[in-house]
Protein backbone atom coordinates (compact mmCIF):
# COMPACT_ATOMS: atom_id res chain seq x y z
CA UNK A 1 0.00 0.00 0.00
CA UNK A 2 2.75 2.39 0.96
CA UNK A 3 4.56 1.43 -2.25
CA UNK A 4 1.48 2.28 -4.26
CA UNK A 5 1.38 5.62 -2.52
CA UNK A 6 5.03 6.25 -3.32
CA UNK A 7 4.53 5.19 -6.87
CA UNK A 8 1.51 7.45 -7.32
CA UNK A 9 3.46 10.24 -5.67
CA UNK A 10 6.39 9.92 -8.05
CA UNK A 11 4.15 9.68 -11.08
CA UNK A 12 2.19 12.68 -9.89
CA UNK A 13 5.37 14.62 -9.27
CA UNK A 14 6.88 13.85 -12.65
CA UNK A 15 3.61 14.55 -14.43
CA UNK A 16 3.31 17.78 -12.45
CA UNK A 17 6.84 18.77 -13.46
CA UNK A 18 6.05 18.27 -17.13
CA UNK A 19 2.97 20.42 -16.69
CA UNK A 20 5.10 23.00 -14.97
CA UNK A 21 7.83 23.14 -17.61
CA UNK A 22 5.30 23.57 -20.39
CA UNK A 23 2.89 25.87 -18.58
CA UNK A 24 5.34 28.27 -16.99
CA UNK A 25 6.06 29.91 -20.35
CA UNK A 26 2.37 30.44 -20.88
CA UNK A 27 2.06 31.81 -17.39
CA UNK A 28 4.81 34.37 -17.87
CA UNK A 29 3.31 35.36 -21.21
CA UNK A 30 -0.09 35.83 -19.67
CA UNK A 31 1.32 37.77 -16.76
CA UNK A 32 3.22 40.12 -19.01
CA UNK A 33 1.39 40.28 -22.33
CA UNK A 34 -2.06 39.25 -21.06
CA UNK A 35 -2.48 36.83 -23.92
CA UNK A 36 -4.66 33.76 -23.50
CA UNK A 37 -2.57 31.61 -25.81
CA UNK A 38 -4.41 28.42 -26.65
CA UNK A 39 -1.70 27.50 -29.15
CA UNK A 40 0.90 27.08 -26.43
CA UNK A 41 0.46 23.30 -26.42
CA UNK A 42 0.96 23.30 -30.17
CA UNK A 43 4.47 24.69 -29.66
CA UNK A 44 5.22 21.91 -27.18
CA UNK A 45 4.01 19.47 -29.82
CA UNK A 46 6.25 21.02 -32.47
CA UNK A 47 9.12 20.54 -30.05
CA UNK A 48 8.24 16.88 -29.73
CA UNK A 49 8.13 16.40 -33.48
CA UNK A 50 11.45 18.14 -34.03
CA UNK A 51 13.09 16.03 -31.33
CA UNK A 52 11.70 12.86 -32.80
CA UNK A 53 13.09 13.83 -36.17
CA UNK A 54 16.49 14.81 -34.76
CA UNK A 55 16.84 11.59 -32.77
CA UNK A 56 15.43 9.07 -35.21
CA UNK A 57 16.16 10.49 -38.63
CA UNK A 58 19.19 12.71 -38.08
CA UNK A 59 20.81 10.55 -35.40
CA UNK A 60 21.73 13.44 -33.12
CA UNK A 61 22.45 12.73 -29.45
CA UNK A 62 19.77 13.43 -26.83
CA UNK A 63 21.24 16.57 -25.22
CA UNK A 64 22.02 18.19 -28.57
CA UNK A 65 18.59 17.19 -29.85
CA UNK A 66 16.99 19.09 -27.00
CA UNK A 67 18.97 22.22 -27.76
CA UNK A 68 18.22 22.03 -31.49
CA UNK A 69 14.57 21.39 -30.76
CA UNK A 70 14.21 24.42 -28.55
CA UNK A 71 15.92 26.68 -31.08
CA UNK A 72 14.02 25.14 -33.99
CA UNK A 73 10.65 25.65 -32.33
CA UNK A 74 11.45 29.27 -31.58
CA UNK A 75 12.44 29.73 -35.22
CA UNK A 76 9.16 28.22 -36.39
CA UNK A 77 7.09 30.23 -33.92
CA UNK A 78 8.71 33.57 -34.51
CA UNK A 79 6.93 34.45 -37.77
CA UNK A 80 3.67 33.82 -35.95
CA UNK A 81 4.74 36.23 -33.25
CA UNK A 82 5.66 38.83 -35.81
CA UNK A 83 2.52 38.50 -37.89
CA UNK A 84 -0.17 37.58 -35.39
CA UNK A 85 0.67 37.65 -31.70
CA UNK A 86 1.90 41.23 -31.76
CA UNK A 87 -1.57 42.40 -32.59
CA UNK A 88 -3.11 40.94 -29.47
CA UNK A 89 -0.58 41.76 -26.77
CA UNK A 90 -2.17 43.50 -23.83
CA UNK A 91 -4.96 45.22 -25.67
CA UNK A 92 -7.49 43.02 -27.38
CA UNK A 93 -10.32 41.28 -25.59
CA UNK A 94 -10.28 37.72 -24.45
CA UNK A 95 -12.59 36.36 -27.11
CA UNK A 96 -10.37 37.69 -29.89
CA UNK A 97 -7.32 36.11 -28.29
CA UNK A 98 -9.04 32.78 -27.80
CA UNK A 99 -10.15 32.65 -31.40
CA UNK A 100 -6.91 33.76 -32.95
CA UNK A 101 -4.87 31.32 -30.92
CA UNK A 102 -7.29 28.42 -31.39
CA UNK A 103 -7.02 29.22 -35.08
CA UNK A 104 -3.23 28.99 -34.91
CA UNK A 105 -3.46 25.71 -33.00
CA UNK A 106 -5.87 24.25 -35.58
CA UNK A 107 -3.58 25.18 -38.45
CA UNK A 108 -0.61 23.58 -36.69
CA UNK A 109 -2.60 20.43 -35.97
CA UNK A 110 -3.84 20.21 -39.53
CA UNK A 111 -0.41 20.72 -41.02
CA UNK A 112 1.22 18.24 -38.61
CA UNK A 113 -1.39 15.68 -39.45
CA UNK A 114 -0.95 16.19 -43.16
CA UNK A 115 2.84 16.22 -43.18
CA UNK A 116 3.59 13.65 -40.47
CA UNK A 117 0.50 11.50 -40.29
CA UNK A 118 -1.75 10.70 -37.39
CA UNK A 119 0.57 8.26 -35.59
CA UNK A 120 2.37 8.83 -32.31
CA UNK A 121 6.01 9.77 -32.84
CA UNK A 122 8.45 8.02 -30.54
CA UNK A 123 11.19 10.01 -28.85
CA UNK A 124 13.80 7.39 -27.97
CA UNK A 125 15.51 7.98 -24.66
CA UNK A 126 19.25 7.50 -24.21
CA UNK A 127 20.13 4.26 -22.37
CA UNK A 128 20.92 6.16 -19.20
CA UNK A 129 17.34 7.38 -18.96
CA UNK A 130 15.40 4.48 -20.37
CA UNK A 131 16.11 1.89 -17.69
CA UNK A 132 14.99 1.65 -14.08
CA UNK A 133 16.96 3.03 -11.17
CA UNK A 134 17.43 0.80 -8.14
CA UNK A 135 16.77 2.75 -4.95
CA UNK A 136 17.67 -0.32 -2.88
CA UNK A 137 14.12 -1.02 -1.82
CA UNK A 138 12.38 -0.18 -5.04
CA UNK A 139 12.96 0.17 -8.77
CA UNK A 140 11.99 3.50 -10.30
CA UNK A 141 12.01 4.52 -13.98
CA UNK A 142 15.03 6.73 -14.49
CA UNK A 143 13.07 8.95 -16.84
CA UNK A 144 10.70 10.02 -14.07
CA UNK A 145 13.61 11.19 -11.98
CA UNK A 146 15.11 12.96 -14.97
CA UNK A 147 11.86 14.87 -15.53
CA UNK A 148 11.70 15.95 -11.91
CA UNK A 149 15.29 17.19 -12.10
CA UNK A 150 14.48 19.07 -15.29
CA UNK A 151 11.52 20.70 -13.57
CA UNK A 152 13.52 21.73 -10.53
CA UNK A 153 16.31 23.12 -12.71
CA UNK A 154 13.82 25.03 -14.87
CA UNK A 155 12.22 26.60 -11.83
CA UNK A 156 15.61 27.48 -10.35
CA UNK A 157 17.04 28.96 -13.54
CA UNK A 158 13.89 30.93 -14.21
CA UNK A 159 14.03 32.29 -10.71
CA UNK A 160 17.64 33.37 -11.27
CA UNK A 161 16.74 34.88 -14.62
CA UNK A 162 13.83 36.86 -13.28
CA UNK A 163 15.25 37.78 -9.93
CA UNK A 164 18.86 38.43 -10.77
CA UNK A 165 19.26 39.68 -14.32
CA UNK A 166 18.64 42.93 -16.14
CA UNK A 167 16.08 41.14 -18.29
CA UNK A 168 14.26 40.01 -15.19
CA UNK A 169 14.17 43.50 -13.71
CA UNK A 170 12.68 44.88 -16.89
CA UNK A 171 10.25 41.99 -17.09
CA UNK A 172 9.01 42.56 -13.57
CA UNK A 173 8.73 46.29 -14.11
CA UNK A 174 6.67 45.70 -17.22
CA UNK A 175 4.45 43.13 -15.51
CA UNK A 176 3.81 45.47 -12.60
CA UNK A 177 3.10 48.47 -14.72
CA UNK A 178 3.32 48.15 -18.47
CA UNK A 179 2.52 51.74 -19.37
CA UNK A 180 4.92 53.08 -16.79
CA UNK A 181 7.68 50.79 -18.05
CA UNK A 182 7.06 52.09 -21.54
CA UNK A 183 7.40 55.66 -20.40
CA UNK A 184 10.61 54.80 -18.57
CA UNK A 185 12.04 53.80 -21.89
CA UNK A 186 11.87 50.04 -21.56
CA UNK A 187 11.37 48.79 -25.08
CA UNK A 188 8.32 46.71 -24.43
CA UNK A 189 8.08 45.27 -27.93
CA UNK A 190 11.55 43.75 -27.69
CA UNK A 191 10.77 42.56 -24.19
CA UNK A 192 7.56 40.95 -25.43
CA UNK A 193 9.34 39.20 -28.27
CA UNK A 194 12.03 37.92 -25.94
CA UNK A 195 9.40 36.66 -23.52
CA UNK A 196 7.53 34.98 -26.33
CA UNK A 197 10.71 33.21 -27.39
CA UNK A 198 11.35 32.14 -23.80
CA UNK A 199 7.80 30.83 -23.48
CA UNK A 200 7.96 28.90 -26.73
CA UNK A 201 11.39 27.52 -25.88
CA UNK A 202 10.15 26.25 -22.52
CA UNK A 203 7.11 24.70 -24.17
CA UNK A 204 9.33 22.87 -26.65
CA UNK A 205 11.65 21.70 -23.88
CA UNK A 206 8.71 20.38 -21.90
CA UNK A 207 7.27 18.76 -25.00
CA UNK A 208 10.47 16.77 -25.48
CA UNK A 209 11.28 15.70 -21.95
CA UNK A 210 7.62 15.03 -21.20
CA UNK A 211 6.94 12.96 -24.30
CA UNK A 212 6.83 9.73 -22.26
CA UNK A 213 3.91 11.10 -20.31
CA UNK A 214 2.25 13.24 -22.97
CA UNK A 215 2.81 11.30 -26.21
CA UNK A 216 3.45 13.37 -29.30
CA UNK A 217 0.73 13.11 -31.94
CA UNK A 218 -1.23 15.71 -33.94
CA UNK A 219 -4.08 16.10 -31.48
CA UNK A 220 -1.64 16.78 -28.66
CA UNK A 221 -2.24 20.48 -29.19
CA UNK A 222 -5.96 20.14 -28.69
CA UNK A 223 -5.86 17.44 -26.03
CA UNK A 224 -3.71 19.38 -23.59
CA UNK A 225 -4.74 22.86 -24.74
CA UNK A 226 -6.93 23.41 -21.76
CA UNK A 227 -4.75 21.55 -19.28
CA UNK A 228 -1.97 24.09 -19.60
CA UNK A 229 -4.39 26.98 -19.40
CA UNK A 230 -5.88 25.49 -16.27
CA UNK A 231 -2.45 25.19 -14.63
CA UNK A 232 -1.80 28.86 -15.30
CA UNK A 233 -5.15 29.93 -13.94
CA UNK A 234 -4.87 27.80 -10.83
CA UNK A 235 -1.32 28.99 -10.18
CA UNK A 236 -1.98 32.63 -10.95
CA UNK A 237 -0.72 34.18 -14.17
CA UNK A 238 2.91 35.25 -13.98
CA UNK A 239 3.78 33.49 -10.75
CA UNK A 240 6.56 30.87 -10.78
CA UNK A 241 5.88 29.48 -7.29
CA UNK A 242 2.18 29.51 -8.14
CA UNK A 243 2.79 27.49 -11.29
CA UNK A 244 4.91 24.99 -9.34
CA UNK A 245 2.22 24.59 -6.70
CA UNK A 246 -0.56 24.33 -9.26
CA UNK A 247 1.35 21.80 -11.38
CA UNK A 248 2.04 19.53 -8.43
CA UNK A 249 -1.48 19.84 -7.05
CA UNK A 250 -3.13 19.17 -10.39
CA UNK A 251 -0.63 16.44 -11.23
CA UNK A 252 -1.56 14.78 -7.96
CA UNK A 253 -5.30 15.20 -8.51
CA UNK A 254 -5.07 13.74 -12.00
CA UNK A 255 -2.69 10.88 -11.24
CA UNK A 256 -4.43 9.83 -8.05
CA UNK A 257 -7.81 10.03 -9.72
CA UNK A 258 -6.64 7.88 -12.60
CA UNK A 259 -5.04 5.31 -10.28
CA UNK A 260 -7.93 4.94 -7.92
CA UNK A 261 -10.84 5.46 -10.28
CA UNK A 262 -9.58 5.22 -13.84
CA UNK A 263 -13.09 5.05 -15.27
CA UNK A 264 -13.72 8.61 -14.11
CA UNK A 265 -11.10 9.99 -16.51
CA UNK A 266 -10.38 13.64 -15.88
CA UNK A 267 -13.27 14.06 -13.49
CA UNK A 268 -11.17 14.61 -10.38
CA UNK A 269 -8.76 16.85 -12.20
CA UNK A 270 -11.51 19.26 -13.18
CA UNK A 271 -13.28 18.96 -9.86
CA UNK A 272 -10.06 20.10 -8.23
CA UNK A 273 -9.86 22.94 -10.74
CA UNK A 274 -13.35 24.20 -9.88
CA UNK A 275 -12.63 24.02 -6.16
CA UNK A 276 -9.32 25.83 -6.43
CA UNK A 277 -10.70 28.56 -8.69
CA UNK A 278 -13.50 29.21 -6.22
CA UNK A 279 -11.17 29.26 -3.24
CA UNK A 280 -8.41 31.22 -4.96
CA UNK A 281 -9.86 33.15 -7.90
CA UNK A 282 -6.57 34.97 -8.44
CA UNK A 283 -4.60 31.75 -8.41
CA UNK A 284 -2.98 29.83 -5.56
CA UNK A 285 -0.20 32.38 -5.25
CA UNK A 286 -1.38 35.03 -7.65
CA UNK A 287 -1.65 38.68 -6.88
CA UNK A 288 -4.77 40.74 -6.95
CA UNK A 289 -5.10 43.12 -9.83
Amino acid at each position, binding site marked *: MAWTGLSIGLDALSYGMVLFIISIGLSIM*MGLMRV*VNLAHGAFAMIGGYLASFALKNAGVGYPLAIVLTVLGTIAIAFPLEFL*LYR*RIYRKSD*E*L*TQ*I*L*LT*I*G*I*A*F*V*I*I*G*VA*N*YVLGPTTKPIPLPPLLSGPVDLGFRMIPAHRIFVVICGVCTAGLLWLLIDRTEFGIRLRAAVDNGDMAESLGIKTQILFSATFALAVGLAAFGGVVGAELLPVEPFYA*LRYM*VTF*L*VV*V*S*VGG*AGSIPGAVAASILLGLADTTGKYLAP*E*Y*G*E*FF*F*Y*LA*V*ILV*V*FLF*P*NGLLGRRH
Partner: protein
Amino acid sequence: MTDRTMVDGMSAPRLTLPLELRAVAITLALGALGYALFPDDLAFLTRLISIALLVLSLDLVTGYCGVASLGHAAIYGVSAYVVGNACLAGHSDPLLLLLVGAVAGAVMGLVSGALVTRFKGLPQLVLSIAVGQLVAALANKLSTLTGGSDGLSGISPGRIFGIYAFDMYGRTGYVFSVAVLLIVFVVLLRIVRSPFGLLCQAIKDDGLRARMIGARVYPRLVLMYGVSGVVGGIGGALNAINTGVVGLDSVGFERSAEALVMLVLGGAGSLWGALIGSIVFQVFEHYVSAANPFHWMTMVGALLIAVVLFAPKGLVSLGGLLAGRTASVLRRRP
Protein backbone atom coordinates in the same frame (compact mmCIF):
# COMPACT_ATOMS: atom_id res chain seq x y z
CA MET B 1 -28.00 44.68 -37.97
CA THR B 2 -28.38 44.90 -34.21
CA ASP B 3 -28.23 48.67 -34.43
CA ARG B 4 -31.13 48.82 -36.73
CA THR B 5 -33.28 46.29 -34.93
CA MET B 6 -32.75 48.13 -31.69
CA VAL B 7 -33.70 51.46 -33.14
CA ASP B 8 -36.74 49.88 -34.74
CA GLY B 9 -37.79 48.34 -31.52
CA MET B 10 -37.76 51.55 -29.65
CA SER B 11 -38.58 54.59 -31.68
CA ALA B 12 -41.55 53.13 -33.50
CA PRO B 13 -43.42 50.40 -31.65
CA ARG B 14 -45.47 49.54 -34.70
CA LEU B 15 -42.32 48.40 -36.47
CA THR B 16 -41.64 45.55 -34.03
CA LEU B 17 -44.21 43.38 -35.72
CA PRO B 18 -42.61 43.57 -39.17
CA LEU B 19 -39.24 42.75 -37.60
CA GLU B 20 -40.55 39.51 -36.23
CA LEU B 21 -42.51 38.80 -39.39
CA ARG B 22 -39.34 39.41 -41.34
CA ALA B 23 -37.56 36.86 -39.16
CA VAL B 24 -40.34 34.34 -39.80
CA ALA B 25 -40.19 34.98 -43.53
CA ILE B 26 -36.41 34.67 -43.71
CA THR B 27 -36.33 31.51 -41.63
CA LEU B 28 -39.04 29.92 -43.75
CA ALA B 29 -37.23 30.94 -46.92
CA LEU B 30 -33.99 29.45 -45.60
CA GLY B 31 -35.85 26.28 -44.68
CA ALA B 32 -37.28 25.99 -48.16
CA LEU B 33 -33.92 26.77 -49.73
CA GLY B 34 -32.29 24.07 -47.65
CA TYR B 35 -34.90 21.57 -48.75
CA ALA B 36 -34.37 22.54 -52.38
CA LEU B 37 -30.57 22.29 -52.17
CA PHE B 38 -30.24 19.14 -50.09
CA PRO B 39 -33.39 17.11 -50.73
CA ASP B 40 -31.50 13.86 -50.23
CA ASP B 41 -29.63 14.95 -47.17
CA LEU B 42 -32.23 16.23 -44.78
CA ALA B 43 -30.39 14.52 -41.95
CA PHE B 44 -27.58 17.01 -42.50
CA LEU B 45 -29.99 19.91 -42.35
CA THR B 46 -31.69 18.76 -39.17
CA ARG B 47 -28.29 18.35 -37.57
CA LEU B 48 -27.40 21.84 -38.76
CA ILE B 49 -30.51 23.26 -37.10
CA SER B 50 -29.82 21.46 -33.86
CA ILE B 51 -26.29 22.91 -33.77
CA ALA B 52 -27.61 26.32 -34.78
CA LEU B 53 -29.68 26.28 -31.60
CA LEU B 54 -26.52 25.56 -29.61
CA VAL B 55 -24.82 28.52 -31.29
CA LEU B 56 -27.80 30.78 -30.57
CA SER B 57 -27.68 29.61 -26.98
CA LEU B 58 -23.98 30.45 -26.81
CA ASP B 59 -24.66 33.85 -28.37
CA LEU B 60 -26.91 34.72 -25.45
CA VAL B 61 -24.07 34.39 -22.97
CA THR B 62 -21.08 35.29 -25.13
CA GLY B 63 -22.56 37.87 -27.49
CA TYR B 64 -25.06 39.45 -25.14
CA CYS B 65 -23.38 39.03 -21.75
CA GLY B 66 -19.70 38.97 -22.70
CA VAL B 67 -19.03 35.59 -21.07
CA ALA B 68 -16.55 33.68 -23.23
CA SER B 69 -17.46 30.03 -22.73
CA LEU B 70 -15.57 26.99 -23.96
CA GLY B 71 -17.86 24.48 -22.28
CA HIS B 72 -21.27 25.22 -23.66
CA ALA B 73 -21.75 21.76 -25.14
CA ALA B 74 -22.34 20.52 -21.58
CA ILE B 75 -25.82 22.04 -21.77
CA TYR B 76 -26.52 20.63 -25.20
CA GLY B 77 -25.19 17.17 -24.44
CA VAL B 78 -26.79 16.70 -21.04
CA SER B 79 -30.15 17.63 -22.44
CA ALA B 80 -29.69 15.23 -25.36
CA TYR B 81 -28.90 12.40 -22.93
CA VAL B 82 -31.84 13.25 -20.69
CA VAL B 83 -34.19 13.34 -23.66
CA GLY B 84 -32.75 10.07 -24.98
CA ASN B 85 -33.33 8.38 -21.64
CA ALA B 86 -36.81 9.83 -21.33
CA CYS B 87 -37.67 8.44 -24.73
CA LEU B 88 -36.20 5.04 -23.93
CA ALA B 89 -38.25 5.06 -20.73
CA GLY B 90 -41.37 5.29 -22.84
CA HIS B 91 -42.13 9.00 -22.97
CA SER B 92 -41.99 9.30 -26.69
CA ASP B 93 -44.17 12.29 -27.50
CA PRO B 94 -41.80 14.65 -29.38
CA LEU B 95 -43.29 17.78 -27.85
CA LEU B 96 -42.96 16.36 -24.38
CA LEU B 97 -39.37 15.44 -25.21
CA LEU B 98 -38.68 18.99 -26.32
CA LEU B 99 -40.05 20.21 -23.02
CA VAL B 100 -37.89 17.71 -21.15
CA GLY B 101 -34.87 18.92 -23.09
CA ALA B 102 -35.67 22.56 -22.37
CA VAL B 103 -36.00 21.87 -18.65
CA ALA B 104 -32.82 19.82 -18.52
CA GLY B 105 -31.03 22.57 -20.43
CA ALA B 106 -32.38 25.23 -18.10
CA VAL B 107 -31.12 23.35 -15.05
CA MET B 108 -27.71 22.81 -16.63
CA GLY B 109 -27.63 26.45 -17.72
CA LEU B 110 -28.45 27.75 -14.27
CA VAL B 111 -25.88 25.50 -12.61
CA SER B 112 -23.09 26.30 -15.03
CA GLY B 113 -24.06 29.97 -15.03
CA ALA B 114 -23.89 30.07 -11.25
CA LEU B 115 -20.36 28.66 -11.43
CA VAL B 116 -19.02 30.44 -14.50
CA THR B 117 -20.28 34.00 -14.05
CA ARG B 118 -18.98 34.27 -10.50
CA PHE B 119 -15.67 35.57 -11.82
CA LYS B 120 -14.33 37.38 -14.85
CA GLY B 121 -11.43 36.90 -17.21
CA LEU B 122 -9.20 33.84 -17.02
CA PRO B 123 -10.90 32.19 -14.01
CA GLN B 124 -14.19 32.51 -15.84
CA LEU B 125 -12.87 30.93 -19.01
CA VAL B 126 -11.24 28.13 -17.06
CA LEU B 127 -14.41 27.46 -15.08
CA SER B 128 -16.41 27.19 -18.30
CA ILE B 129 -13.89 24.66 -19.59
CA ALA B 130 -13.85 22.77 -16.30
CA VAL B 131 -17.64 22.47 -16.20
CA GLY B 132 -17.66 21.16 -19.77
CA GLN B 133 -14.89 18.65 -19.14
CA LEU B 134 -16.44 17.51 -15.88
CA VAL B 135 -19.69 16.72 -17.65
CA ALA B 136 -17.82 15.00 -20.47
CA ALA B 137 -15.93 12.80 -18.00
CA LEU B 138 -19.17 11.94 -16.21
CA ALA B 139 -20.89 11.09 -19.48
CA ASN B 140 -18.10 8.66 -20.19
CA LYS B 141 -18.28 7.14 -16.73
CA LEU B 142 -22.05 6.80 -16.36
CA SER B 143 -22.35 4.41 -19.25
CA THR B 144 -25.60 2.94 -17.97
CA LEU B 145 -27.20 6.29 -18.69
CA THR B 146 -25.18 7.38 -21.69
CA GLY B 147 -24.04 4.20 -23.37
CA GLY B 148 -20.44 5.37 -22.82
CA SER B 149 -18.35 5.50 -25.95
CA ASP B 150 -20.90 3.45 -27.93
CA GLY B 151 -23.44 6.19 -27.42
CA LEU B 152 -27.07 6.01 -26.43
CA SER B 153 -29.04 4.48 -29.26
CA GLY B 154 -32.48 3.18 -30.09
CA ILE B 155 -34.24 6.44 -29.37
CA SER B 156 -37.42 6.38 -31.42
CA PRO B 157 -39.79 9.24 -30.80
CA GLY B 158 -43.51 8.88 -31.43
CA ARG B 159 -45.74 10.87 -33.74
CA ILE B 160 -45.99 14.64 -33.55
CA PHE B 161 -49.48 15.57 -32.28
CA GLY B 162 -50.08 11.83 -32.56
CA ILE B 163 -50.34 12.25 -36.35
CA TYR B 164 -47.01 12.84 -38.12
CA ALA B 165 -44.55 9.99 -37.79
CA PHE B 166 -40.80 10.51 -38.21
CA ASP B 167 -40.07 9.02 -41.64
CA MET B 168 -36.86 7.47 -42.85
CA TYR B 169 -36.18 10.35 -45.26
CA GLY B 170 -36.23 12.78 -42.39
CA ARG B 171 -38.95 14.98 -43.87
CA THR B 172 -41.03 15.16 -40.71
CA GLY B 173 -37.91 15.74 -38.67
CA TYR B 174 -36.85 18.55 -40.94
CA VAL B 175 -40.16 20.38 -40.89
CA PHE B 176 -40.36 19.88 -37.14
CA SER B 177 -36.84 21.29 -36.68
CA VAL B 178 -37.47 24.33 -38.89
CA ALA B 179 -40.65 25.06 -36.93
CA VAL B 180 -38.84 24.79 -33.61
CA LEU B 181 -35.98 26.99 -34.79
CA LEU B 182 -38.43 29.56 -36.07
CA ILE B 183 -40.30 29.80 -32.80
CA VAL B 184 -37.15 29.93 -30.72
CA PHE B 185 -35.65 32.58 -32.96
CA VAL B 186 -38.66 34.87 -32.79
CA VAL B 187 -38.90 34.49 -29.03
CA LEU B 188 -35.20 35.29 -28.69
CA LEU B 189 -35.58 38.39 -30.85
CA ARG B 190 -37.99 39.65 -28.23
CA ILE B 191 -35.90 38.59 -25.27
CA VAL B 192 -32.76 40.37 -26.41
CA ARG B 193 -34.72 43.58 -26.85
CA SER B 194 -36.51 43.28 -23.52
CA PRO B 195 -35.28 45.34 -20.56
CA PHE B 196 -33.63 42.20 -19.27
CA GLY B 197 -31.85 41.67 -22.58
CA LEU B 198 -30.73 45.28 -22.71
CA LEU B 199 -29.46 45.07 -19.16
CA CYS B 200 -27.36 42.04 -20.07
CA GLN B 201 -25.80 43.98 -22.94
CA ALA B 202 -25.20 46.86 -20.56
CA ILE B 203 -23.42 44.49 -18.19
CA LYS B 204 -21.30 43.27 -21.08
CA ASP B 205 -20.37 46.84 -21.99
CA ASP B 206 -19.48 47.95 -18.48
CA GLY B 207 -20.28 45.89 -15.42
CA LEU B 208 -19.42 48.61 -12.91
CA ARG B 209 -21.61 51.15 -14.66
CA ALA B 210 -24.45 48.63 -14.67
CA ARG B 211 -24.04 48.19 -10.93
CA MET B 212 -24.12 51.95 -10.52
CA ILE B 213 -27.58 52.11 -12.05
CA GLY B 214 -28.64 49.53 -9.49
CA ALA B 215 -28.27 46.29 -11.44
CA ARG B 216 -27.63 43.04 -9.61
CA VAL B 217 -25.14 41.70 -12.08
CA TYR B 218 -24.62 38.13 -10.93
CA PRO B 219 -28.29 37.06 -10.74
CA ARG B 220 -28.97 38.64 -14.15
CA LEU B 221 -26.11 36.73 -15.75
CA VAL B 222 -27.19 33.48 -14.14
CA LEU B 223 -30.71 34.04 -15.40
CA MET B 224 -29.46 34.66 -18.93
CA TYR B 225 -27.47 31.46 -18.62
CA GLY B 226 -30.76 29.77 -17.73
CA VAL B 227 -32.43 31.15 -20.86
CA SER B 228 -29.41 30.08 -22.85
CA GLY B 229 -29.80 26.65 -21.27
CA VAL B 230 -33.38 26.39 -22.49
CA VAL B 231 -32.29 27.15 -26.05
CA GLY B 232 -29.29 24.83 -25.95
CA GLY B 233 -31.44 22.18 -24.32
CA ILE B 234 -33.97 22.37 -27.14
CA GLY B 235 -31.08 21.99 -29.56
CA GLY B 236 -29.87 18.88 -27.72
CA ALA B 237 -33.39 17.49 -27.64
CA LEU B 238 -33.73 17.94 -31.41
CA ASN B 239 -30.45 16.12 -31.86
CA ALA B 240 -31.67 13.13 -29.86
CA ILE B 241 -35.11 13.11 -31.48
CA ASN B 242 -33.89 13.40 -35.05
CA THR B 243 -30.84 11.16 -35.07
CA GLY B 244 -32.02 8.57 -32.56
CA VAL B 245 -28.54 8.37 -31.05
CA VAL B 246 -26.56 10.53 -28.64
CA GLY B 247 -22.79 10.16 -28.62
CA LEU B 248 -20.03 11.46 -26.39
CA ASP B 249 -19.18 14.01 -29.05
CA SER B 250 -22.30 15.97 -28.12
CA VAL B 251 -20.77 16.93 -24.75
CA GLY B 252 -17.16 17.19 -25.92
CA PHE B 253 -14.75 20.09 -25.94
CA GLU B 254 -14.65 20.09 -29.75
CA ARG B 255 -18.37 20.70 -29.89
CA SER B 256 -18.02 23.67 -27.54
CA ALA B 257 -15.07 25.11 -29.42
CA GLU B 258 -16.79 24.67 -32.78
CA ALA B 259 -19.89 26.43 -31.52
CA LEU B 260 -17.76 29.38 -30.48
CA VAL B 261 -16.07 29.40 -33.87
CA MET B 262 -19.42 29.43 -35.66
CA LEU B 263 -20.68 32.22 -33.45
CA VAL B 264 -17.72 34.46 -34.05
CA LEU B 265 -17.68 33.66 -37.73
CA GLY B 266 -21.27 34.89 -38.03
CA GLY B 267 -20.97 37.69 -35.50
CA ALA B 268 -21.41 37.47 -31.73
CA GLY B 269 -23.97 39.81 -30.24
CA SER B 270 -26.41 39.36 -33.08
CA LEU B 271 -28.93 36.54 -33.37
CA TRP B 272 -28.66 36.74 -37.14
CA GLY B 273 -24.92 36.39 -36.77
CA ALA B 274 -25.32 33.16 -34.80
CA LEU B 275 -27.66 31.79 -37.44
CA ILE B 276 -25.54 32.81 -40.41
CA GLY B 277 -22.35 31.56 -38.76
CA SER B 278 -23.75 28.14 -38.05
CA ILE B 279 -25.17 27.78 -41.57
CA VAL B 280 -22.05 28.95 -43.40
CA PHE B 281 -19.69 26.92 -41.23
CA GLN B 282 -21.64 23.70 -41.47
CA VAL B 283 -22.36 23.87 -45.17
CA PHE B 284 -18.68 24.55 -45.74
CA GLU B 285 -17.80 21.69 -43.41
CA HIS B 286 -20.22 19.40 -45.22
CA TYR B 287 -18.22 19.72 -48.42
CA VAL B 288 -14.66 20.20 -47.27
CA SER B 289 -14.63 17.88 -44.31
CA ALA B 290 -16.01 15.07 -46.41
CA ALA B 291 -13.15 15.61 -48.87
CA ASN B 292 -10.38 15.61 -46.26
CA PRO B 293 -10.83 15.96 -42.51
CA PHE B 294 -7.25 17.14 -41.93
CA HIS B 295 -7.41 19.91 -44.46
CA TRP B 296 -10.66 20.79 -42.77
CA MET B 297 -8.87 21.52 -39.50
CA THR B 298 -6.27 23.67 -41.26
CA MET B 299 -8.96 25.56 -43.07
CA VAL B 300 -11.02 26.23 -39.95
CA GLY B 301 -7.87 27.53 -38.31
CA ALA B 302 -7.05 29.78 -41.25
CA LEU B 303 -10.66 30.94 -41.39
CA LEU B 304 -10.59 31.85 -37.72
CA ILE B 305 -7.41 33.84 -38.11
CA ALA B 306 -8.88 35.61 -41.13
CA VAL B 307 -12.09 36.46 -39.30
CA VAL B 308 -10.20 37.88 -36.33
CA LEU B 309 -7.97 39.95 -38.58
CA PHE B 310 -10.37 41.10 -41.26
CA ALA B 311 -13.93 40.81 -39.96
CA PRO B 312 -13.75 40.92 -36.16
CA LYS B 313 -17.47 41.54 -35.96
CA GLY B 314 -18.30 38.55 -38.09
CA LEU B 315 -19.97 37.93 -41.41
CA VAL B 316 -23.11 39.72 -40.29
CA SER B 317 -21.19 43.00 -40.13
CA LEU B 318 -19.89 42.46 -43.65
CA GLY B 319 -23.47 41.83 -44.70
CA GLY B 320 -24.57 45.02 -42.97
CA LEU B 321 -21.79 46.94 -44.67
CA LEU B 322 -22.79 45.56 -48.04
CA ALA B 323 -26.46 46.30 -47.45
CA GLY B 324 -25.55 49.82 -46.33
CA ARG B 325 -23.51 50.44 -49.47
CA THR B 326 -26.20 49.09 -51.74
CA ALA B 327 -28.80 51.19 -49.98
CA SER B 328 -26.75 54.36 -50.31
CA VAL B 329 -26.05 53.65 -53.97
CA LEU B 330 -29.74 53.12 -54.59
CA ARG B 331 -30.60 56.25 -52.68
CA ARG B 332 -28.27 58.34 -54.79
CA ARG B 333 -30.18 57.34 -57.88
CA PRO B 334 -33.15 59.58 -58.48
